[in-house]
């Protein structure tokens, strides 16, 4: 009988201790991440080693539920353009390159999507503060890149004052969103309709965007 009571007490203590420890770990993880971020960001910029450390310490859980987003958000669809071409204005030379708005394959459709949303990309990249990143749109300008027939949008990351440059092709608006969120110290990504997801889930993609080795491919890195 005595052994049974002792067993129950040990079991309760184990469960309680595990729950306390889990909660403690969870809270500490997020709080510590924020502290770590503040410490690294104190001088206004993030070094490569600091970024890698932050990536490795992204919290796996939060002390609150993730938002599912508003369910009855009013949306207004895009009105169809009457034109059959779209002008791209180069921000460097200000010259205009006309693109057909009728895509005949996926590559052209992706390119058009980038062109149509280029201002959104520019706005988002400005929010990536603390590290030296910029968009390279030059392939879209027939004046700056006369020989390019299949242009791509590049994200350029300058490490070590430009001595180590990393370039990524075919980035998406979501890529820039997660990057901006990450360098601002966020631990969640706010997607469409403010639906939240852990930034940790995007860690492989963040590594790829920043030029760090990716350990194991997953579906996000394959995007």
């Amino acid at each position, binding site marked *: 009988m005595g052994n049974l009571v002792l067993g129950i007490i040990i079991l309760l203590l184990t469960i309680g201790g595990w729950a306390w420890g889990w909660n403690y770990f969870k809270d500490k993880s997020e709080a510590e991440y924020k502290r770590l971020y503040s410490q690294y960001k104190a001088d206004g910029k993030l070094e490569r080693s600091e970024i890698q450390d932050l990536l490795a310490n992204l919290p796996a859980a939060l002390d609150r539920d993730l938002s599912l987003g508003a369910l009855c958000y009013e*949306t*207004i*669809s*895009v*009105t169809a353009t009457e034109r*059959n*071409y779209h*002008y*791209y*204005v180069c*921000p460097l*030379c*200000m*010259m*205009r*390159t*006309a*693109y*057909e708005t*009728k895509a*005949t394959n996926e590559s*052209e459709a992706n390119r058009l999507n980038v062109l*149509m*949303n280029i*201002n*959104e990309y*520019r*706005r988002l990249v400005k929010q990536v503060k603390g590290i030296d990143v910029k968009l390279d749109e030059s392939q879209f300008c*027939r*004046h700056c890149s*006369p020989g390019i*027939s299949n242009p791509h949008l590049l994200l350029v990351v300058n490490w070590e004052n430009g001595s180590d440059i990393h370039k990524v092709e075919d980035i998406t608006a979501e890529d820039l969103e997660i990057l901006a969120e990450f360098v601002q110290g966020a631990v969640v990504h*706010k997607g*469409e*309709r403010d639906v939240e997801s852990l930034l940790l889930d995007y860690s492989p993609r963040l590594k790829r965007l920043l030029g760090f080795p990716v350990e194991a491919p997953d579906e996000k890195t394959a995007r």
Partner: protein
Amino acid sequence: MRRKKPTSFLSASFLPTTAVLEMTYRCNHTCIFCSCPWFAPEKKYPVAEEISSRKWREIIDDLCGQGVTHVAFTGGEPLLKEGIEDIIVHAATRAYRCIESKNGGWKKTATRPRLYLLSNGLALNGDVLKLCRRFNVQLSLSLPGLATFQAHTNVDNALGVLDLFRKAREMKIRTTVGITVTRWNLSELYETIAAAFIAGADSLLMNRFLPGGRGLDWSRELFLDGSEMKIMMDTAEEVLKRSDRAGSMGTEIPKCMVDADRYSHLRIATRCSAARDFFVIDPSGYVRVCNHSPERLSHADEIGQLRCHPYWNIFATKDYLPDSCGRCRLMKTCDGGCREAAHIIGHEVNAEDPLFLRLDRKTAEIRT
């Protein structure tokens, strides 16, 4: 091996394809809604000597050489400009080289520019109508109300404008009725559009009143709020539907304030076209990004300098989205309303559209 056709080409220049030429500062109306910056109460806009009709012809030659395909004549009242008829004839006989997208490919063509004349009609005579007919000039006549026409313009000529629509229709001239909608003429908007269509107007170009120019003195009285703007669009849609005509809003509206899908006949813009699709040259030859803008940029003689002009580049690259729009998902297809109206009232190009503000009587100062 079959060569892959190109899907893009470099434009003739950095300039947008539509040039709006303000022929003169002068006007024979004194519209209280007028947004011409030189009529603004503080008189900050630098008014210099008007350029000659000969100089205008040189500018038009240069613009056509730089890929301008559409030329609009406005003012002030363009018909008060000495030699306006010669300038129109000159423009109509120029040719520009362009590349058009046709049947999935690009085709090089040399063609005449399309011309537009925007007038209040007071000085418009039979000779000008013949000119419009001869050179296929699209005529846009301002009709800011019927009963309220005189209150808006200080001239009693609504019937005269309607008569011009009739004459233009008889001569097979394409016409547009231009209506700036204010609180004063909103209640007769249906009748105004209908009267213009019955008289012979082909299409509608409707603008919401925006503070600027002389209109700054009348902002509180004339400015439509969100619900009045909705009434304006619903009314226009109703007339357009009944008459099976096309119409468009000339001034962009913040996308969060309008459900554009509700309108099948009224085309509603949510993007700013300034320095992207059109630009303006003022009566002394200086370029502005749009007719509402109070910022005078480079002279037409040095038009290439615009490429390095920070103000031009803000508009050309659309680097002006309001911070207040934050993470709004509609920003991909919206510029947060009229950027120049925001500039005039909020003193910053990336300020909020006045639709989001309340305006003080006669001062246009903001009270949030």
